[in-house]
């Protein structure tokens, strides 16, 4: 009798204890941190774009009306597009090879990919600054084999930024594409061969179309990441091809123009978020892996 009462009283209590432990308030400390030191500062910055120096859209009119700023926007898109394209062209065969290689060879390539991804960004950018300079190894090598007489201008221009950024973005396109190709069923390609397709037809009519969603998703990710990049373009690019992130930093740091800085930040934010929305809409996370 006693034990029955005992069981009846303790069980709901235990159930309540389990339920109480699953509460929403556990997320409050992190939410507080994020609101106070992420949401609020960003909102204040964006608000300053329409209040400083005078209320209104003056900053945006200036930003979009000036050929200098428009050139920076254009350059940001050109560099990001170029980096995305080159990464995709190099990344696809590598991801493909990785997906079907013997596992020991693949794990060596993986280790290299991860090492490069995790190596300090500044260290990697510095390496390219040294490699690409006028007296750098690459120019010397090209001159040594007689391909060129004069050192090529490889740094402080579009070439330098593209090489440096592609170097950084390659793993970000190879890894997701690897996942996509890995999941494809080899039987589909066997079927194609049985139906008489040669390798080229199998590639263009089956493999490429099947991996296209994965490629588009990876390319979009690399493009968005490139749009907001600051360190590598600042060090490897010249003053003639400044990118948007550097412009924002310059407005704030050297010009102390918070209105224009906020306006440029909003442009970058809107483009980034819009492209993310596209990514989620068309290649939602599960389709990204499934092809």
């Amino acid at each position: 009798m006693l034990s029955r009462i005992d069981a009846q009283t303790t069980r709901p209590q235990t159930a309540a204890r389990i339920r109480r432990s699953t509460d929403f308030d556990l997320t409050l400390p992190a939410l507080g941190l994020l609101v106070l030191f992420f949401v609020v500062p960003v909102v204040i910055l964006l608000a300053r774009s329409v209040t400083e120096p005078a209320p209104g859209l003056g900053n945006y009119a200036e930003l979009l009306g000036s050929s200098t700023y428009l050139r920076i926007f254009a350059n940001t898109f050109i560099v990001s597009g170029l980096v995305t394209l080159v990464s995709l062209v190099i990344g696809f065969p590598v991801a493909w090879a990785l997906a079907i290689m013997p596992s020991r060879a693949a794990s060596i390539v993986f280790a290299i990919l991860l090492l490069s991804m995790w190596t300090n960004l500044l260290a990697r950018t510095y390496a390219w600054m040294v490699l690409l300079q006028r007296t750098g190894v690459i120019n010397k090598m090209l001159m040594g084999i007689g391909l060129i007489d004069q050192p090529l201008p490889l740094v402080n221009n579009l070439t330098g930024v593209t090489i440096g950024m592609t170097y950084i973005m390659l793993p970000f396109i190879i890894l997701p594409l690897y996942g996509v190709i890995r999941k494809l069923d080899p039987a589909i390609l066997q079927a194609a061969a049985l139906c008489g397709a040669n390798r080229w037809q199998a590639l263009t009519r089956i493999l490429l179309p099947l991996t296209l969603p994965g490629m588009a998703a990876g390319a979009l990710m690399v493009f968005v990441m490139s749009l907001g990049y600051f360190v590598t373009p600042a060090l490897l690019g010249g003053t003639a091809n400044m990118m948007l992130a550097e412009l924002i930093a310059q407005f704030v740091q050297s010009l102390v123009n918070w209105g224009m800085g906020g306006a440029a930040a909003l442009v970058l934010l809107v483009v980034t978020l819009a492209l993310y929305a596209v990514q989620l809409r068309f290649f939602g996370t599960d389709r990204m892996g499934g092809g």
Partner: protein
Amino acid sequence: MLLNFDRLGWWKLVLVGITLLTSAFLLLPILFIAALSFGSSQWLIFPPPGWTLKWYQELFADPRWLESAWTSFRIAVIVTVLSVLLGLVTSFGLTRGRFIFREALKALFLTPMILPVVVLAVALYAFFLQIGLNGTLTGFVISHLVLALPFSILSITSALEGFDKSIEDAAVLCGASPLEAKIRVTLPAISHGVFSAAVFSFLTSWDEVVVAIFMSSPTLQTLPVKVWSTLRQDLTPVVAAASTLLILLTVLLMVLAALVRKGLKS
């Protein structure tokens, strides 16, 4: 056919060739910097005319390099601890809680990962100017924590989602308090997620440069900021030495992570 390595025919050569070239492209700059840091030429000539340790001596003789490395390390350790603790608590709330905004909240927690860092850097810089946190250790820790937390939450929630909660409930039914059950039953089971949260958080803070450029003051700067400001002046081999040490730390952490993962599996 195309997905069978042995039946690729001569296409195999092309694929393997591109993969080898790409691997070399990814690896060589890292090895190159390490080699140059021991080169005797100030002009970073390769192959160097001789070998020397003088750039490392210069690095270790300069108190500003050491100070910035120490600053970076302290910030990274504090950020790692806070990020893992906060990540644990938040992840429990996110995976176990049943409330309407859960998915939206999860997305919000991950946004610092996808927004351009420069926007956060500039926004925090303005905010910290007003509340007097610029150039302080607290300012660094807060800003790096905002960037590290998403990685922590991502690692721990995915580990928690793979954990069968009824095991924890069983411990509670056997008389453990909910907290005790979490610490003694759940935590060991999700330790791989907690460990990768720690590694990601540490590296995020240790390697962070964009926010740090804005947070730093003449008296307080992290190692990447010191590298950045040195690089803006010239390409001195001292930076090669500093970079090599940064790379070495990365390799050590990667090896450690691989060993722990292996140890956890067995």
